[in-house]
């Protein structure tokens, strides 16, 4: 019971309060690049959730049982290589066995290797000293938070495209300022996890 409450609070914290994109600034590149259309935003978001879960499930045991404590300093190098290899494997696997899924998610996979959210989350799981299950819940929450931010922002951007904007602000500047406002809206959630569940993360 206690665990369930903790996981729910952790999910709410990662999805709403400290949203991966809007509060922690991880994965800004795909957030700004791929959020122009709703379907590509969803595709990217789902691909990120998938890779995040896989990457965490693989890197956590590697760190805990192989690297720690003697080779802990190799963390960054090992993690990024594992993530890169993993993304490649997933791509090959999907292309061979699930071509329908590959068609919709395949184009986002090469981009995910350089998505700092993936490396950031796997390192955070170690830094926060989460156990295996908590790490997976954390990764899932971060992924859903990413998807939520992408989908919301795709809606915001479709409005921006139709409005008259001063010439200098067209394109990236107005997108960033819109992101600032969305981020401000998310600040309204601060403290909600502690308020509802009575525990602080």
């Amino acid at each position, binding site marked *: 019971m206690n665990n369930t409450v903790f996981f729910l609070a952790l999910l709410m914290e990662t999805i709403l309060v400290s949203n991966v994109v809007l509060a922690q600034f991880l994965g*800004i*590149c795909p957030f*700004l690049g791929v959020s122009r259309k709703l379907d590509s935003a969803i595709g990217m978001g789902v691909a990120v959730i998938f890779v995040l879960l896989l990457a965490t499930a693989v890197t956590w045991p590697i760190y805990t049982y192989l690297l720690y404590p003697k080779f802990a300093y190799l963390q960054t190098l090992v993690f*990024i290589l594992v993530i890169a290899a993993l993304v490649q494997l997933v791509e090959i696997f999907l292309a061979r066995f699930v071509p329908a899924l590959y068609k919709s998610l395949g*184009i986002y996979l090469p981009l995910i290797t350089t998505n700092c959210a993936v*490396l950031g989350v796997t390192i955070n799981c170690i830094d926060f000293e989460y156990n295996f299950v908590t790490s997976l819940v954390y990764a899932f929450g971060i992924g859903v938070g990413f998807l939520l931010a992408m989908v919301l922002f795709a809606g915001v951007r479709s409005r921006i495209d139709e409005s008259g904007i001063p010439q200098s602000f067209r394109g990236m500047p*107005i*997108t*960033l300022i819109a992101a600032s406002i969305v981020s401000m809206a998310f*600040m309204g959630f601060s403290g909600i996890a502690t308020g509802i569940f009575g525990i602080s993360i």
Partner: protein
Amino acid sequence: MKSKDILFNGILKENPTLVLILGTCPTLAVTTQASNGLGMGLATMAVLICSNIAISLLRNIIPDKVRIPCYIVFISGFVIIVGLVMEAFVPSLYDALGLYLDLIVVNCIILGRAEMFASKNTVFHSMLDGIGMGIGFTLALLMMGSIREILGSGTWFGLTIIPSSISPIAIMMLAPGGFFVYGCLIALVNTIIRKRGGTPVDKSNGCMGCASFDACRAAGTASEKGGCC
């Protein structure tokens, strides 16, 4: 291309942060204080110069098919070295940068320069390119950090600039302030480019300048209009 042009290319004409809009995560995340921005910029510059030199030296040896993983190994090796040096000599900055120091590995500027410049040019030119791009990135981060620190807490490098009787705009130190200041800076740079008769790079279209451009092109998904966006 002359050496001088390569050096200044990264500082002004193709400033990675403000013109090409690469490496956005650290730009937004660590610039709550001018000193953090400067530290992050210098750390990234060190990694960029080293990786550019190493990759340029080995550009004829690294097989084309596995070049991206090779680049990543070099880059993360240098990131580890820079991280260990910073932990030993500037522990306060190391703590302030935290996770984002490790994330230099996935900074698109570094992989982008490896792919677009160092793998095709001589060692000396690659080093100059690394220095130029590094200075451009550092200056942009220093500028972001200065604006946010002065507006957000009334200080600059810890020195009080705005008297405490005027209450600072605290939101500048928080996430929304980061997005806002970055957006305004890019708009300013776009205006300057246009005043001087150029056309600003429109990142909202096309895959050019994206670090994953070559990966996507190999997969056949990149296009003028952007494969994934």
